[in-house]
């Protein structure tokens, strides 16, 4: 049984006077223990909403409808009440965000924020909690940790803040960590440090990681499995190497062609995808990507393409996929 099994997750926002937004539209994926699973896609495709739904962090108000299931052991995260969810968050499942400043309390020193987590979930207090906090900051590579404990979030650099947040997230050795664009706001040399830290955590403590990113390079270097999202649905999912060697969905293929690579120079035109994510077809009317797709045939419009899975568990939602190009390593 997988550690986390998400089935048919959907999230709809409807507000009076506004168009209903189906932000997540039947997303399914699984995460095995100790595995790194990527959710990748361009802005607005539903990555953050997916993770917030799993963490029980979407506003509980009229107009927000969540459907499907997310089994974490015997618990369905989507059916858990707020009190139990608070116990699960931080202890079993933790999350880090793009902007660490927004998830740290600006008026409370880092040390107190870390020890609070330790007290809440592990019952550590006083000197024991302080020692463990120092140990944690040290582990995530914050120099001079006992001194940092007294500092406020704004006194740390962006990279150090993200480390502090990771320290809090891993304080209770959660089984699952969800990272939503954890390095997008950071410089590339600092990003490399944080990605290395996350790799180390996964390797050493066996924490599973859901890595949310729009950066295909990050995916290529980190993830065991990848799910590509478009307009709220998973349109392709595969293990890392087959996905990059042999993308079957035209959108995945297009994304790969769009990224300038360090090893391609001037004069080699990028293969851009035409139009923008605004040009979508609603899923019930056909493939949402059809208006931008070069592979489009008649069958693309009319009803949504089904998810097809080949013998290598490489799945794609397309009626006219890109032809296989490579002998696939698995």
């Amino acid at each position: 049984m997988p550690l986390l099994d998400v089935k048919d997750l959907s999230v709809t926002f409807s507000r009076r006077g506004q168009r209903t937004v189906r932000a997540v539209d039947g997303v399914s994926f699984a995460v095995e223990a100790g595995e790194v699973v990527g959710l990748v896609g361009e802005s607005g495709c539903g990555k953050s909403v997916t993770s917030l739904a799993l963490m029980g962090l979407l506003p509980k108000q009229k107009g927000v409808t969540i459907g499907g299931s997310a089994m974490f052991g015997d618990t369905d995260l989507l059916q858990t009440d707020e009190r139990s969810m608070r116990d699960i968050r931080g202890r079993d499942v933790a999350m880090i965000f793009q902007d660490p400043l927004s998830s740290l309390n600006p008026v409370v020193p880092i040390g107190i924020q870390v020890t609070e987590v330790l007290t809440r979930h592990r019952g550590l207090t006083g000197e024991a909690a302080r020692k463990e906090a120092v140990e944690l900051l040290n582990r995530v590579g914050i120099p001079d940790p006992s001194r940092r404990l007294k500092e406020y979030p704004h006194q740390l650099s962006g990279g150090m803040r993200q480390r502090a947040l990771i320290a809090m997230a891993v304080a209770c050795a959660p089984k699952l960590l969800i990272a939503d664009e954890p390095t997008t706001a950071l410089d590339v040399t600092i990003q490399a440090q944080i990605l290395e830290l996350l790799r180390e955590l996964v390797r050493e403590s066996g924490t599973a990681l859901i890595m949310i990113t729009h950066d295909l390079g990050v995916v290529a270097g980190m993830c065991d499995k990848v799910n590509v999202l478009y307009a709220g649905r998973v349109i392709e999912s595969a293990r890392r190497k087959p996905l990059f060697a042999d993308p079957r969905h035209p959108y995945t293929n297009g994304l790969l062609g769009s990224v300038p690579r360090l090893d391609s120079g001037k004069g080699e035109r990028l293969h851009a995808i035409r139009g923008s994510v605004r040009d979508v077809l609603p899923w019930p009317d056909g493939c949402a990507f059809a208006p931008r797709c070069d592979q489009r045939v008649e069958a693309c419009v009319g009803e949504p393409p089904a998810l097809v899975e080949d013998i290598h568990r490489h799945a794609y939602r397309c009626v006219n996929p890109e032809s296989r190009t490579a002998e696939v390593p698995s």
Partner: protein
Amino acid sequence: MTETLVEVDDLKVHFPIKRGVFLDRVVGHVKAVDGVDLRIAKGQTYGLVGESGCGKSTLGRALLQLTPPTGGRVNFDGTELTTLPAKQLRSMRRRMQMIFQDPMSSLDPRQNVESILTEGLQAHGLGGDRTERRKIIAKALDAVGLPQWALSRYPHEFSGGQRQRIGIARAVVLNPDLIVADEPVSALDVSIQAQVINLLEELQEELGLTYLVIAHDLAVVRHISDTVGVMYLGALVEEAPSDDIYRTPLHPYTRALMSAVPVPDPEVEDRRERILLAGDLPSPANPPSGCRFHTRCPWAQPTRCGTERPELRVVGTGAHRVACHFVEQIESGEIRPHTVKAEVIADGAGSKDAHGALETALETPGGPGI
């Protein structure tokens, strides 16, 4: 040799750091740009890369005289800009245009596209009568791939990529020689980035434009540029033809930067060696002595690196310039990399607010993983 359009010589921009109740005391300077020399050849693209706060935007603005330089010279097609009287500078401006990262904040939301494009023409007394102007505008719109009906629309009615096209149209409508593009694609989704990069390349071929492209994304810069300059804390540390900098990065910082860029190819990612730099970027208000990179450099030596500032000098075949005392020995393997102690930089490196001083130096677990 190609003709030079822009020649920058020892350019400096130092911003005063003010303190006191009335901000009337100058307690120091942020040396945002501190002695940069570079040349941009006609019809070519010069790409400027570096991490946040290293002075890329300031250099671009100072080159266009939008920020007054503290020192140095900027020669544009034979005219010295730093001493040019305001009136002549104003008319020179038509020939040097700028494109920004966030097209939304640089476009007036109350102006429709037609009026955005007309404004520059009128300011420079171009385009004659109304019909003539309309023709010029229609052509610019066409060149950037926007439909004619866009003219009557407002910026918020467009997607991010289309807004960037409007920003580009506003620049090309004036028929400039030089375009300084500051992070032109970094706010865009990858599929849209590719469209805009392709558009910039097409326009260059059609109109013979010269570009200075500023970006923090090394892959973008490498893709679009003929020559690449790498900046670190206010100065160029390396400059070379784009292919050379990719194939044989020589400066330790460029090597680290290059090895840190994620490549969308699992085979490459699994094989590559990463040079992880320890610690944060130092503050430009309080840059390290000697070689500004010596506090993070895995190859730094006890002599010279901490005391003597290396000049940007030609290494090898002439077109490659590097500012490192020991580049030859590093290249030959005579000097080996070592672990570096991470320094803590108080308060967000690269953030636009107060820059604190650096304090302690301590061993970080997992220093450079080489």
